[in-house]
């Protein structure tokens, strides 16, 4: 008799849900703080817009121990190789938040040395608009990544979630 596919599916989905719950409530960010957005990211980790209550206070600067890379700041062509190297060093599953206008589309820098959007060399999950985005905007971005994990979507491959400036 064939295994009841519904019950087999039931067990694995329950397990997936638990793993997803654990993953999304302990997203350890890898702060790729490059320029001005990095200061707002520090404020996002700071005492007022506390990110510790989302489980993400462990800003490990080693890529081997993180699962969420927040690229904060203008990525130039020279820096893009470094960002890619660090992205490659992160273990799967990994998510990427493109924080700010510079990482989303190159921002206000239409010049010869700025990459017009990091999605040219890294798969991005969530774009957070702003220059720099307010820390509460970035918190919304983090929550969107959490919702994405809850829906069970594969990192970097699902439909992109865009966030506009709320405040």
């Amino acid at each position, binding site marked *: 008799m064939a295994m009841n596919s519904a019950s087999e599916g039931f067990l694995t989905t329950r397990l997936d849900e638990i793993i997803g719950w654990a993953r999304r409530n302990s997203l350890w960010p890898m702060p790729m703080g490059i320029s001005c957005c990095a200061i707002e990211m520090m404020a996002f980790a700071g005492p007022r817009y506390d990110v510790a209550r989302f489980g993400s206070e462990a800003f490990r600067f080693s890529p081997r121990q993180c699962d969420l890379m927040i690229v904060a700041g203008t990525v130039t*062509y*020279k820096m*893009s*190789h470094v960002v*890619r190297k660090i992205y490659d060093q992160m273990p799967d599953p990994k998510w990427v938040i493109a924080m700010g206008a510079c990482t989303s589309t190159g921002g206000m820098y*239409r*010049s*010869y*040395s700025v*990459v017009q959007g990091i999605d*040219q*060399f*890294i*798969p991005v999950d969530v774009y957070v608009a702003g220059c720099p985005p307010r820390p509460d905007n970035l918190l919304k971005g983090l929550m969107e990544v959490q919702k994405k994990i809850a829906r069970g979507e594969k990192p970097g491959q699902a439909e992109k979630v865009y966030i506009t400036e709320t405040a």
Partner: protein
Amino acid sequence: MTPDELRAQLTEKFGTLIESVTVYRGETTVVAAKTCIADLARFLRDDPACQFNSLRDVCGADYYRPGERYEVVYNLYSLPHKTRLRVKVRVGEDDLHVPTVSHVWAGANWAERETYDMFGIQFDGHPDLRRMYLPEEFEHYPLRKDFPLMGIPGSLPLPRK
């Protein structure tokens, strides 16, 4: 010292190598021939009436004109006298060489490297003339007027996705 005194002293020492000394909005600018810049720098630093002991900035400018296309501009400051001075040197496109002043003020080292990076002006006698901001393999000089703002596609490599 006043601009007139400065002009008198410089022409006495360097003669026709000093092309002009002008004042605009309270700032004195000396235009000199590029061959004498190293001696002029040493004189400006050591002479007790001048004592320009702090080089604030070295930059280049592309005037995009026939003849002497570029200029190298030195912004100086004298801490004892609290005065500023600007020294400009004209460089033609056919001979993009200027003697270095990094042996007079050590701070000129990086500033001249940046000028080389942006304009392609070679500084003779510089201890370590390589690019400052852009990768070494980059073949163009971005701040020249004929280099486009958006750059030349493919001139800077990007990692694969």
